[in-house]
């Protein structure tokens, strides 16, 4: 029963998602009311590249949204978070979110290298343990 239902719903869902994403690509931010060239467009290097970049960017933004969801971000927040990123930041995050440093201060796993860090702390090369100050 559930399998049958899924077989019917899945194609519909896929179609909806694809259609839903198309207008976004078509209505990407472009010229303002009188056909003026936007500052973003003028700042990007050349037009063909700018068009391709815009398509990439729409895809990247979706990609980053998915990555944020996978990282446990509240679905209600994901869109607003990605919207506030610049084009370059979106591209960076789409390419290498996993390699980005995430400010956190996790000291837990560090006890294995406690002694080395203690020495480097005393030398002022690192600043892991507050008591060495």
């Amino acid at each position, binding site marked *: 029963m559930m399998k049958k239902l899924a077989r019917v719903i899945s194609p519909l869902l896929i179609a909806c998602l694809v259609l839903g994403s198309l207008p976004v690509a078509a209505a990407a931010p472009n010229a303002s009311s009188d056909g003026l060239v936007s500052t973003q467009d*003028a700042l990007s290097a050349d037009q063909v590249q700018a068009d391709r970049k815009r398509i990439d960017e729409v895809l990247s933004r979706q990609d980053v949204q998915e990555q944020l969801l996978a*990282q446990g971000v509240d679905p209600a927040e994901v869109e607003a978070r990605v919207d506030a990123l610049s*084009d370059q930041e979106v591209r960076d995050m789409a390419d290498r979110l996993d390699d980005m440093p995430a400010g956190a201060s996790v000291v837990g796993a560090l006890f294995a290298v406690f002694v080395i860090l203690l020495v480097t702390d005393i030398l002022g090369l690192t600043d892991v343990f507050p008591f060495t100050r």
Partner: protein
Amino acid sequence: MSRPQRLSTNARPAGVLLLVLTLTILGGCAGSPTIQSPDRLGIPEQLKLDDVPFHGQRDYQCGPASLAMVLNASGVDADVDSLIPQVFLPEREGSVQPEMLATLRRYERVPFVIDGNFNALLREIANGHPVIVMQNLSLPAWPVWHYAVAIGYDLNARELILHSGMDAETRTSFATFDNTWARSERWAVVALPPGELPDSIGRHRALNAIADFQRATDPQTALPAWRTLAERWPELAMGWFGLGNAEHATGNPEAAADAFRQATEQDAGLAVAWLNLGLSLEALGDIDRARDALNQAAALPSKWRERARTALDELSSE
């Protein structure tokens, strides 16, 4: 029996040698950062910003805590609890740099990534701007990434004053701080209301920061930032161009045309400014001057040539 013994007698000097070598190599990158004299920088010898409230971090949330401190100092009512879902990545147990900048934009503050050096850092603090810095408190092999807020310094003691982690106004020597800061390629950010610019920023960084800010907010919010940019660097044609677009989008066509005109005066080869000048004059009904501007745009070799020609054709056919 003899083999393990020999191994252990050799291992000790080898270990000591390795440690000494490692420390020498590490010590090679360590050194006191160079700072210009306070006179040349034009900053006081010591200073602490008293109006930056402290928010202690909970768990791994130094990112949201740092944001709350600079936003509060800038007059924005934001608390750590509402910032956490906006910037924290639960699986990573941390926050990444692009999202730190994006979150500041959501609170209508323009994030400027300043030059990564002590001179820029100290100048910004001296100008009353708390600075979010990213550090790796540990070694590159076992990173402990961390955000803190620089709120003061003492040039005589060579110490930086930070709101960091659970510690308010903690003091760290310039040398130690620089070692930890260098590992983030000396990432430092100030967040200012639209219409203010950091003292130490370069014109192109400022231009891009404002363009990114407008993209995330709206032309109305970004307008004061464009005005200040054009005021500070009147010779920067793209600054006038951005101002023109913001004026146009907020319903000031005359001001927009003036700004585009300024852009063409600063850089007569900027075809896109001629194009927008022509289009905005056309919308104002000033057909003759619109045609002149579009002719200029069509005459210049640029990617905007086709668009200028089309606009000219449309103008003639009317």
